[in-house]
């Protein structure tokens, strides 16, 4: 009964979203404001119905109702509750349900902010959002219905891929989807602006919090995914340039570029058509990611069951949404002429440079991801594009970005002078260069890149601090720091946090890539192996039983110069349904780096194959991502983001004077 209720709710949601797509446009044509206002309750209704459908599916998973095909194929009674729930989105149909849940949630959120947006514009935005919902609902109902029943009810389900049975992965997809789908709002805003034929600084302010929210979720989602790969896949890697990873990285880059370019639209009424294009492209990347995962066009560890019918549907949808919006863009772009002009050395120029580098990087990742596909389509040869290509691009494009990043926030709008930031940043430049030379000097030969990476990271960190100092006048009058710090807009603090986070990530990547130590060997009980000055002693190996797996768990004692540092307990698990091996690395993060141990096969005669690593400062990756997320949240909490919310008189008066990234 419950699954039928869910099925019915899906169909009702389709009807309502068709209404949501058509009604506002009719209303705008007629100039009927009461009819336009209907867009809000329709959006709430859509969300309610989709939430009911999603709830019905989740319920079927929790009670293990194997009469539902989807549950039987992906769940199992012996799974812990958390994985029964996360199993809902651990498969094709369920992940689409999560997708539309979030899509309708965002539409409802737009409606809820209500008075912040003019009625006519809001109605336009919600009608575009409804159109997206129609597409996805049709897709679900006709090709991927999660509520189909089985006549012959199996006694037990097939279980969830054991690799996905992990807390990190339980939350990774929802985070990423919040990011992907968050960009749908940005897309709807852009399309609505194109239809209306005008992009104003106000538009940029409306769209900014949505971009920021999507970017925060993407950052967190990508970080969670890489953290999962790091400890679950068991060989210490955290990023593989897999097509689907790239598919999440491209929207992140585009959203990052959009965050910066929309500032120029807001402050200076320039870069308008470029910003609209970025908004469309960012969401297109999200859709492309969905397509690549499900159509079976590319090989990936993330691929769900491949079904050409689904592929054709998504392709058609892609053509309609991306093709349609870009055609609209080509038609309307000439109307979006900029009014603000700016000099070559100015904050605007710095932001343009940021945009050029970020979007070039996104384009390079796109080419690298699709090149094998295009080549195969052209002449049938199969190749793969490996990490060296992407890493080279990252170094070439991100290095100038980081250098410019130190200067950007210190430049004046409109027409700045390079001498001002230069004066302020001299210490950062010196520190960065000194560190660069120190690294090269200390371990001469072949590590110029390492020196450069660390030098850049330090340069950026010091620049951020000098910029804060400049803003708050800390060195001139330390006692007034807190008072002045409070008057600095939160958006600026957010920027500083996010930029600092980027510096930490660069440091983490560079240091861990350069100085990771790895030992592979066979050990028996009592053996000790030395890795980077740490002694790993294998103290025991014993079999254990989990709820739906059996495993061997090793016990390592790690000491340094005789002093105990940590105990590690890596596991090698064998799941029963479906049968599969997974490794659970034993990891102990220390301040200087991670101790990382993996237990492998029993090689006979009491010998176990083990892999031991010392990964210096790898936590910097996730620490840095954490800084970026916090920076984003601080910026999101800035009053001015809440357009339409009552703002204090003092702030309103200050508005034109505020300098902001």
């Amino acid at each position, binding site marked *: 009964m419950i699954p039928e209720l869910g099925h019915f709710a899906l169909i009702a949601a389709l009807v309502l979203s068709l209404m949501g797509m058509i009604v506002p446009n009719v209303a705008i044509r007629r100039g009927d404001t009461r009819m336009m206002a209907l867009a809000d309750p329709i959006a709430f209704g859509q969300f309610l119905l989709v939430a009911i459908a999603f709830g019905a599916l989740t319920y079927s998973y929790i009670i293990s109702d194997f009469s539902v095909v989807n549950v039987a194929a992906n769940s199992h009674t012996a799974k812990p509750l958390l994985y029964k729930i996360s199993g809902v989105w651990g498969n094709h149909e369920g992940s689409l349900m999560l997708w539309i849940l979030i899509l309708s949630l965002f539409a409802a959120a737009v409606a809820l902010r209500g008075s912040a947006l003019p009625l006519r514009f809001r109605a336009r935005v919600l009608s575009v959002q409804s159109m997206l919902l129609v597409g996805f609902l049709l897709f679900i109902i006709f090709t991927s219905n999660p509520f189909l029943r089985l006549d012959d009810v199996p006694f037990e389900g097939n279980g969830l891929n054991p690799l996905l049975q992990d807390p990190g992965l339980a939350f990774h997809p929802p985070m990423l989807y919040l990011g992907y789908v968050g960009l749908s709002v940005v897309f709807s805003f852009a399309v609505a602006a194109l239809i209306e034929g005008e992009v104003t600084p106000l538009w940029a302010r409306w769209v900014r919090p949505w971009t920021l929210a999507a970017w925060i979720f993407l950052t967190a989602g990508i970080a969670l995914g890489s953290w999962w790969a790091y400890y679950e896949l068991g060989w210490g890697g955290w990023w593989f340039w897999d097509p689907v990873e790239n598919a999440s990285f491209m929207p992140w880059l585009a959203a990052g570029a959009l965050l910066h370019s929309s500032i120029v639209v807001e402050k200076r009424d320039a870069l308008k*058509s*470029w910003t609209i*294009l970025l908004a*469309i*492209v960012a969401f*297109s990347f999200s859709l492309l990611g969905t*397509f690549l995962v499900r*159509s*079976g*066009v*590319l*090989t990936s560890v993330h*691929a769900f069951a*491949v079904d*050409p019918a689904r*592929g*054709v549907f998504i*392709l058609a949808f*892609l*053509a309609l949404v*991306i*093709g349609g919006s*870009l*055609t609209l*863009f*080509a038609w309307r*772009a*000439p109307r*979006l002429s900029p009014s603000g002009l700016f000099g070559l050395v100015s904050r605007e120029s710095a932001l343009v440079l940021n945009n050029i580098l970020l979007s070039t990087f996104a384009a390079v990742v796109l080419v690298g991801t*699709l090149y094998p*596909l*295009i080549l*195969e*389509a052209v002449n*049938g040869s*199969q190749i793969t594009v490996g990490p060296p290509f992407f890493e080279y691009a990252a170094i070439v494009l991100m290095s100038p970005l980081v250098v410019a990043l130190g200067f950007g926030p210190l430049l004046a709008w409109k027409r700045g002078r390079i001498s001002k930031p230069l004066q302020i940043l001299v210490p950062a430049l010196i520190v960065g260069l000194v560190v660069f030379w120190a690294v090269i000097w200390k371990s001469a030969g072949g590590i110029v890149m390492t020196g450069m990476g660390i030098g850049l990271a330090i340069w950026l960190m010091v620049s951020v601090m000098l910029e804060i100092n400049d803003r708050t006048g800390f060195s001139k009058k330390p006692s007034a720091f807190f008072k002045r710090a409070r008057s600095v807009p939160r958006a600026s603090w957010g920027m500083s946090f996010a930029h600092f986070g980027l510096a930490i990530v660069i440091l983490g990547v560079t240091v861990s890539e350069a100085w990771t130590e790895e030992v592979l060997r066979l050990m028996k009980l009592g053996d000790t192996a030395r890795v980077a000055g740490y002694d790993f002693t294998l103290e025991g190996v014993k079999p254990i039983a989990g709820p739906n797996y059996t495993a061997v768990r090793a016990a390592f004692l790690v000491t340094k110069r005789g002093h105990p540092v940590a105990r590690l307990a890596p596991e090698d698990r064998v799941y029963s349904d479906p*049968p599969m091996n997974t490794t659970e690395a034993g990891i102990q993060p220390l301040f200087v780096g991670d101790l990382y141990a993996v237990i492998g096969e029993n090689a006979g005669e009491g010998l176990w194959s083990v892999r031991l690593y010392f990964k210096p400062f790898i936590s910097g990756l996730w620490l840095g991502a954490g800084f970026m997320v916090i920076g984003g949240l601080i910026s999101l909490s800035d009053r001015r983001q809440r357009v339409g919310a009552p703002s204090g008189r003092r702030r309103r008066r200050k508005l034109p004077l505020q300098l902001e990234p």
Partner: protein
Amino acid sequence: MTGFARYIPILVVVGLLLVFLKMMGDGRNPKEIKSVLIDKPAPVFVLPALEEGGAGISNADLQTGKPMLVNFFASWCVPCRAEHENLMKLAYEKGIPIIGIAYKNDAAKAREFLDELGNPYAKTGLDRDGRTGIDWGVTGVPETFLIDGEGIVRYRHWGPIAGDTLEQRLVPKMEGLQ
């Protein structure tokens, strides 16, 4: 953005969509890596028989003038069980000779596997350490090669011959040879 520049995004997208359409249309499996052996002589191999005291197999067994299949299998491989029924059908209903190669398998266990499910193979060799598999470019079991009567590889089937892959992919290739 005025002039021609504003059409660039849409043109790029149309191009990409056409590529996607083409790639989806040919029904390929993206996980499948093309075999470099197609239309080339089968790699040289000599393997001991799986049965105790049986005669071993070698390239000479491929040049009988009649098309045949070479199937890499293992008792530890689950998809091999899935395709076994189809192999039996091919051998006993369609009369196709199949040469089995037990890949990285314990001889006793491989024999047990055939005792349990039935033996579709005309001859069976044992590739204990997987060296022959490497020469043939086997990426995993099961993999099946279609050899014409002259010992030339004509088709490589990646993964199990299960479901409708038998009728849709393998049978047409075999009919093409006869």
